Structure formats: structure tokens, C-alpha cells
């Protein structure tokens, strides 16, 4: 998943700030399951989504999974959620009630409220810059951050190999039937290739003195600027405002302890 080039003010923010903002939006919202907080959050997020500067096509394409998943989970909750209030439909274990419909609405809005900013923020994040930020700002161990980055890249570069694997199976006479089994076999072969390549990459990294004792310097400095601080504040503001409104209106329903 290569980063899109957003053109808005958000695109150039430090990836750690983007990660932090997404978490600041998500975590408080997760504490409650009511439609009001999710709706308020969604409305407040619109300027954020616009500030990312994605084209319409990029936006809809990348958030597509959310637009599918949100209604799907809402329907599931509507049918099987904890019943309360008037019951409309009842069949076997399906129980559609006033309470479950309300929960479904809340779930739909909440999935969007948490997911949309997360997707939009991460779409413009370059993995190398994120690794730099995590190691320099959050101070995660450099060996792990860079090793993980290198390992993750490895699998992503195997698209050509996948194509070759499927052509090879056609040539060997086994491509006529058994699609699932063939896909599993190809996935295994790709896994072997990825591990082999990852092991060789680890040797190459060690050959460039990676993991050697002594302090490491950073060619690409990663710092938090005022713009990043503003982004974090905006994220926190969105979720706290949403929660405050929900509490004020009386719709706040905590997730834990039910």
C-alpha cells in the first residue's frame, strides 16, 4: 500500500502525530456506544477529512471497506444485539428490538467516526517516515522498528512472484480445478520465498553494521512541530467534545460493565 500524495495541509504532518491523532479520536469514542457521540464526532471530523486533500476518487476507494463493513455490522447488531424496549421481530435467536436498533445505529456511526479519520490519516503516511518517527520521537528500539519495516516491505514486493507462481501452475497441468487448494499452495510457496528473502535481507542489514553496538544516528530527522501539535489537539478536541455532548444530552452508555 503505497502512500497517496495528499495535497492538503495534513499530508505533510509527522506520521507519529497522525497516528496519535487517530488514536486520540478513537480511544475515547470507544468508551461509549451511543449514536449521539458518534454523530457529533463525524460532523466534527469533516474539516479534518477535507484537510487531508485527497481527491474524491482516492477517498472513496480507500474508505470503501468501511462503507461496506459499517452497515454489515449494524445489521448484525440489529438482529442479534441485546434486546431492550419493544420487540419488533422474533425468530429463533433473532430478536429485533427498539434497543437493538438503537445499538445498530450507534455502531454504524461509530465505525465511520473511528474508521474514516484513521484511513484518511494513514493513507498519506510513508512507512519509512513512520519508522523514523517511532524510533526518534516515541523512542521505540531502532532494531525493532527498522527490522520490522524491512520485513514488512519484503512481502509487499512479491507481486511479480505471485503472477509467476500462478502461470507455473497452469503450465504444470494443475490449474483446471481445485482453486482454493491451489491458492493455498501458492500462498505457502510465497511464504517460503518471503522468509528466504527476509533472512537474506537480515544478513544484508547486518553486513551494513545494523545492530552493531554503539549509538545510531538518523539521516532523516523526525520532529514534532506546532502543526503536529495542533493536529493532536484537534484529535483530542473532536473526541472530548463528542463525549461531552453525549454526556450532556444523557445518551452516554459505557461499554464496559454492562
Amino acid at each position, binding site marked *: 500500500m503505497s502512500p497517496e500524495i495528499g495535497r492538503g495541509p495534513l499530508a505533510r504532518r509527522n506520521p507519529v502525530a497522525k497516528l496519535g491523532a487517530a488514536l486520540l479520536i478513537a480511544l475515547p469514542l470507544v468508551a461509549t456506544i451511543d449514536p449521539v457521540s458518534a454523530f457529533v464526532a463525524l460532523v466534527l471530523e469533516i474539516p479534518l477529512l477535507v484537510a487531508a486533500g485527497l481527491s474524491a476518487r482516492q477517498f472513496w476507494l480507500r474508505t470503501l471497506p468501511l462503507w461496506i463493513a459499517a452497515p454489515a455490522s449494524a445489521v448484525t447488531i440489529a438482529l442479534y444485539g441485546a434486546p431492550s424496549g419493544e420487540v419488533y421481530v422474533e425468530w429463533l435467536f433473532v430478536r429485533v428490538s427498539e434497543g437493538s436498533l438503537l445499538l445498530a445505529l450507534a455502531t454504524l456511526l461509530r465505525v465511520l467516526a473511528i474508521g474514516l479519520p484513521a484511513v484518511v490519516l494513514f493513507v498519506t503516511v510513508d512507512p*519509512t517516515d513512520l519508522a523514523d518517527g517511532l524510533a526518534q520521537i516515541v523512542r521505540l528500539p531502532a532494531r525493532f522498528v527498522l527490522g520490522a519495516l524491512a520485513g514488512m516491505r519484503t512481502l509487499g514486493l512479491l507481486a511479480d512472484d505471485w503472477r509467476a507462481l500462478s502461470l*507455473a501452475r497452469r503450465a504444470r497441468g494443475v490449474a483446471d480445478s481445485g482453486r482454493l487448494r491451489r491458492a493455498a499452495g501458492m500462498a505457502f510457496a510465497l511464504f517460503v520465498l518471503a522468509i528466504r528473502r527476509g533472512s*537474506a535481507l537480515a544478513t*544484508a542489514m547486518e553486513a551494513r553494521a545494523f545492530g*552493531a553496538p*554503539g549509538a*545510531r544516528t538518523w539521516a532523516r*530527522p523526525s520532529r514534532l512541530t506546532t502543526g503536529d501539535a495542533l493536529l493532536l489537539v484537534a484529535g483530542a478536541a473532536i473526541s472530548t467534545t463528542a463525549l461531552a455532548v453525549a454526556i450532556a444530552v444523557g445518551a452516554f452508555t459505557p461499554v464496559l460493565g454492562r
Partner: protein
Amino acid sequence: MPASTATPPAAVEARGWGWRYATRQAWAVRQVSLRIEPGQRVLLLGASGSGKSTLLQGIAGVLGGADEGEQEGSLHVAGLAASAARGHAGLVLQDPDSQTILARVGDDVAFGCENLGVPREEIWSRVGEALDAVGLDVPLDRPTSALSGGQKQRLALAGVLAMRPGVVLLDEPTANLDPAGVAEVRDAVGRAMDATGATLIVIEHRVEVWLPLVDRVIVLAPGGGVLADGTPREVLGAGSGGDAAPAVAHDLAAAGVWVPGIPPRVPPPPVHATGEALLTAHDLTVARIPGAVVAGPLDVEVRAGEVLGIVGANGAGKSTLGLTLAGLLPPAGGRVAASASLAADASPRRRRGQADDDPFGWSSRSLLTRIGTVFQDPEHQLLARTVRDELAVGPRALGLAEEEVSARVDDLLDRLRLARLAEANPYTLSGGEKRRLTVAATLAARPRVMVLDEPTYGQDATTWAELVAIIAGLRDGVDERGPLAVAAITHDEGVLAALHARRFEVTR
């Protein structure tokens, strides 16, 4: 300790050094004693299994700790123990794809400097110098995945040079490259060595590529120890070959090294006259991804009893043409037609209204017995858990009786000398053995046409000669079915000459 100024050329000294991997009983290297002076340029040779790569990795200090193997003797770089001298030796490995560490060119080159603690201001000037030294003129934010093989190897070399090591180690850096890439890398190394004066140790079995650059040749013996050590002339002879070359040179040639002046054996010219054209392409344009035409329109025939050599520059579409002829990729324009005898009784794929003589429209099983394809990377074609089962995949897919399957498998195990590996996992075979295995597996279904993509890619002289002999045997007909039609995609002119192939050049 990291050096922030240029590291002077380093000496390498081994005293009775040996290494055994934890997974093996036998020692990979044993009793190696040598001293390489600072600034010397050494070519390290030896039969496969003589531990050359292990020695290089030992000098680079990447062999791992006590849980990965055991060491005997001592190995020193610039006076320090090799395992503790990170940064004094830089290593470039064989596979271009396993050495690109970061996604952007500049970042990848800067990686080594970062690890050594070089101050930031100095890193980027070193990056620029290193890229200039290897002649890689690309912007710093170019994605590394967009580089060609030769460029990737030069990038790895730049990453090593930016560390300013005292010793530069190259482990078969050009084995996986086409001739243009080989020349690029060799020239880049020459320039870089002239600029830095660092010590150089190269492993490569294509000797004449590196002879102009080196002033010393060391040969390792398979059982342990150093077999020969001296100037290129002393060890290999003057390149005139024949009886004038020393015994060592002949031993090396027998072990698979491409010794200048001692060429490998080539098979005799074709016995039969060329037969019918089994595949014909009319006005064919080919594309890897639909819409992106790489070559064409072309008219070409693949005839029985003959080897068609498909040649062309890198990226010109040779492989794409080969795969389209083999019925694996759809033609972007024009058509591929199989002869009547080849297309007889071929069953179509489901839901396809293609003409019966177009191989792309055939079912996988029909393709299996008519056109066999051997891919460039053997690991893409491994399907089973033992060599025997691998050979049996094709016959079993045809629904043959078990006795017939066993008979074919045993015959191929003998013919291609894989019998002692019959129960081994295919992934654990050596490169040359994997290649023979994939050729054998394709032959098990007895196709009449064989398409081979770079069959001699990265092979030493012995495997090269074996494969060329096998292909010649197919061309001349090994059993009652008679001569096969062979199409070989290759950039190796030696193969074409050895097989008396008809050249077909694909130009953009």
C-alpha cells in the same frame, strides 16, 4: 568504534580458520590460513562447497553467534576480530532483491552510515559521493523497487562504499544479472576501487569478467585449506588454455569455474533435419499486463528438431513472447496457432470460445502434454514435498496409472541424475539440481514443445554444460516421440552457439 573519517585499507588475516554451521555435520570451511595485504585485490575461487561464501561472511562478521555454528582458529580484519569489526568490511551479496533495505535510493545508501553513527551532516555528502562512485545517476527519492537488477547491485555497492570500509567483499555480485548489468557492475567496482584504494575480495565463477581488476587469485580446496595462491597468471595460466594452463586451472574448470581458455564441453550439432512447425505466430503483439504492449508485431515459428533462440535487450519482451507462445499469456494482438498435429484432441478451458489451435484457450491438462514451460526461477515451479512427488505431479494430473507414473518418474530420475535426491524436499536442492528437477518435471508429461526461460541463468560451467547437453538431447529426440521443438529465451550467446540455435531477435 565507528569511524567518521575515511577508513584506511585494511588487511585480512586468517589463521587456521574454520566454520561449521549448526545444521551440517561437515565443516563448511577448514584450516584456512592466508594474509591479504591492505589494498590488494583478490579473486576467490573454488568448487562449490569449498566454503567461499562462508569465508566472506566470516570476514564481514555476519555468520552469527554460537547458536548458529562453531568457529575454530582466528580471523582478523584490520587487526580486530572479524565478528567485532562491523563497519570495517562491507559485503555485497548475490541477489539484488534481497539487498534493498529501504524504499528510497538515498535512504538505502544512507543506512550503513546511520548504523555506524556518522553525523547527519556528513551522511548525505557521503551518499552523493557513493552514488557518483558507482555511476548511479538517479534522484535520491527514486523507489528502489523500480531499479533494474544491475542498478540494484550498484545501489548495494554504493551503500557499502558510503560506510568507507577498509575491505570490500563481493559475493557473486553479477551472477543474477544480464550481460549489460554485469558490465555496469564491474565498471562501477573498478571505479570505486580506484577512488578508495580499499582491499577487494571477489567471488565469481565468471572469471574473465574480473581478471582485469584483480592482482591475486586464491583457490580454496573443498576439503579444507588453500589449494592455490598467486597471481592470475601463476594460478590460471595466461588464458591460452589447453596444455599451457597449470593443473589447478584444469581442476577448477572441472569444478565449474569458467576459466578463460578452457571452455566447457558442448554437444555435437543437430542430427536430424528440421521438422514441422509446431507453433506459429502471426502478427503477434505481446503484453505482460493487458494494455501495455512490449513487443510486436512478430512472425515466428517454433519447429521440431530445432532450437529457437529468442534474444533481445533487457525488457524487450523476450520472456513475454516466450510465455505467450507457451499459451500462458494471452496475445495482445495477432494470434498464436498450433499445428494440427499438436492441437489434435486438445480440450478447451471452461467458458472459452477460443479457436482450437490457440494454446491460450486450452485447458491446463491439455497444455501439459503439448507445451512444457520451464521458468527462470526454479522455486516458482516447486509443487510437492519430495523430488519424486514433484516429478509425479504431471503424470498424476493426467490420471495415469500408478505403475506408469512410477516408471516415468524412475526413468527421469536416472536420466537427469536426480536418483539420490529422490526423497529430499525440492527446496533444499542446490541451484543446479533445482534446475534439472524443473526440466525433468516438465518432461514427465512428455510435451512436444519445450519453452525454456533463461535456462543457464547464473549457473557455473558444469551445470551449464549439463543443461546444454540435456537441451540438445531434447532437440535431437530422446525417445520414440522423436525430436522436440525447443524455444530458449536467453541472453547467453554461448548457449545459442552450443545448440546451433536459430536466432530470433525481439526489438522494441
